[in-house]
């Protein structure tokens, strides 16, 4: 199996990865928060020659990263990035995790302290079919939000519009944005048609 085939196969479940990779500059130093088994970092190494480190709290993910030859630091994101110097990474990535962390605000600000820029992807709670489910009186369930209200790890659900307000209020510049549905960018009305949002952001100077 070639690296490209492998990447295509393994990325099938993660449409945001290609969007993220497109924004990672070649040879850059990348920190991936909540890196899981290291799939994204391996992809960035293959496609961008990125020098990457992952952070994850789960024992099985740390072991999977070691098996996959991915640099990993076992640490609890909720405790911040205290061990990391300001500006020590070109890019800090948080993919599909922001909705599952408790201290959302602190983590985004920490990302922008440690990284010269950050890439964040999250499931968009504002997509029309989710709004419809809420309008019909049910908590929404979708491929991006596959959990029931009682077993979801997601503690902060938010929309593209919410995130942009958050950025404005926290002096965060949005450098690029793409909203995806089924792996393809949506055109107009991102908050209505996008199921996943990916942002490249930076601290406003």
């Amino acid at each position, binding site marked *: 199996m070639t690296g490209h085939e492998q990447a295509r196969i393994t990325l099938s479940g993660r449409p945001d990865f290609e969007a993220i990779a497109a924004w990672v500059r070649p040879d850059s130093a990348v920190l991936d928060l909540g890196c899981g088994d290291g799939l994204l970092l391996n992809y960035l190494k293959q496609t961008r020659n990125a020098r990457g*480190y992952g952070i994850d709290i789960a024992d099985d993910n*740390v*072991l999977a990263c070691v*098996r996959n030859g991915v640099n990993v*630091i076992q640490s609890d994101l909720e405790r911040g990035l205290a061990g*990391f110097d300001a500006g020590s990474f070109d890019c800090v990535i948080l993919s599909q995790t922001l909705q599952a962390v408790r201290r959302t605000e602190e983590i985004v600000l920490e990302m922008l302290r440690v990284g010269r820029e950050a890439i964040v992807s999250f499931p968009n709670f504002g997509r029309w079919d989710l709004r419809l489910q809420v309008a019909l009186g049910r908590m929404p369930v979708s491929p991006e939000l596959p959990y029931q209200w009682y077993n979801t790890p997601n503690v902060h659900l938010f929309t593209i519009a919410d995130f942009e307000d958050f950025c404005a209020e926290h002096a965060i510049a949005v450098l690029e944005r793409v909203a995806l549905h089924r792996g393809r960018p949506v055109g107009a009305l991102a908050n209505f048609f996008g199921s996943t949002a990916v942002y490249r952001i930076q601290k406003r100077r």
Partner: protein
Amino acid sequence: MAQQGNAGGRSVGAVRPQTLHFAEPLKFRSGSVLDAYDLVYETYGTLNAAKSNAVLVCHALNAAHHVAGYYADQPENVGWWDNMIGPGKPVDTDRFFVIGVNNVGGCFGSTGPKSVNPATGKPYGSSFPVVTVEDWVHAQARLADRLGIDSFAAVMGGSLGAMQALQWTISYPARIRNAVVVAAAPTLSAQNIAFNEVARQAITTDPDFHGGDYYGHGVVPRRGLRLARMIGHITYLSDDAMMEKFGRALSTGAINFHFGVDFEIESYLRHQGDKFSEYFDANTYLLITRALDYFDPAAEHGGDLSRALAAAKARFLVASFTSDWRFAPARSREIVKGLLDNRLDAAYAEIDAPHGHDAFLLDDARYHALVRAWFDNIHAAL
């Protein structure tokens, strides 16, 4: 007697220590020189034709070169890291050529304070040079030279052994491809040094110490050594592990209104102390605790560990244990920061184990799975 570890694998079987004599002077960091010296070591597995599969295992305070297997005439004398090293074990001796060595200054066959100084015909005793981690690593590199090993696939250790692995990456960056650094610290804390000082005081104030030259008096400072071991042992265990194992259990089932043994923990510590004082040399204990105190690779770089690691090239597996209060996870994270600052390949695991510092010697499934995965990758790259 095949030792069957829980993590799978077999014992390397009966092993035999070997001795190499080094006729070249060894210059110590202190400036002292040993004109010649012996190193005792054991090996397990087979060195491949490319000599690329060698793994050096560095020992901590109480251990030595007997890392795995057992002695044919002493089947109960199992190596100190036998659960980690052997055929099919995390460090698989069917793949790797593993070396354990007793460090200079030791008391298990390598030249140390109780060895006879050829210049005087008497044991070195108090005249033995104060050794440092750098000196040990230097001597280990000479052993590698003699065994024809240019570069180690890995150097590994726990605690003080891990400090040696770390020092290897700084002293001989071209000769080590992987460092496995378990339950380590980049320096001792004031508290760590304080415990060592109490242990040393116990030894040096024992009337049988005779300034370190007790060999000629036909005595050993057994009481001091015993205390030193008891103090050390307390720091190796967590409060929880000790409570779990002993609680407030009473040896005779009742308190006896005396100062003899009432509690099981007292009995345990006395037993550990007694055992240790029978086989360990007090001068070696002093030397090794001092080597711990002096270890500070950042010192030459203005206290900046990242600068100290600038020359390092190895890939690092760093592991700590949450209940280790002797070398707490925060100390390992200091090392990890130094690795990241130099963009070195690294994995850091913080293993949620209850046993305290001693966890590095125990058979924890998560810990062993990590080491196994790490060595699988090393093997795949051979």
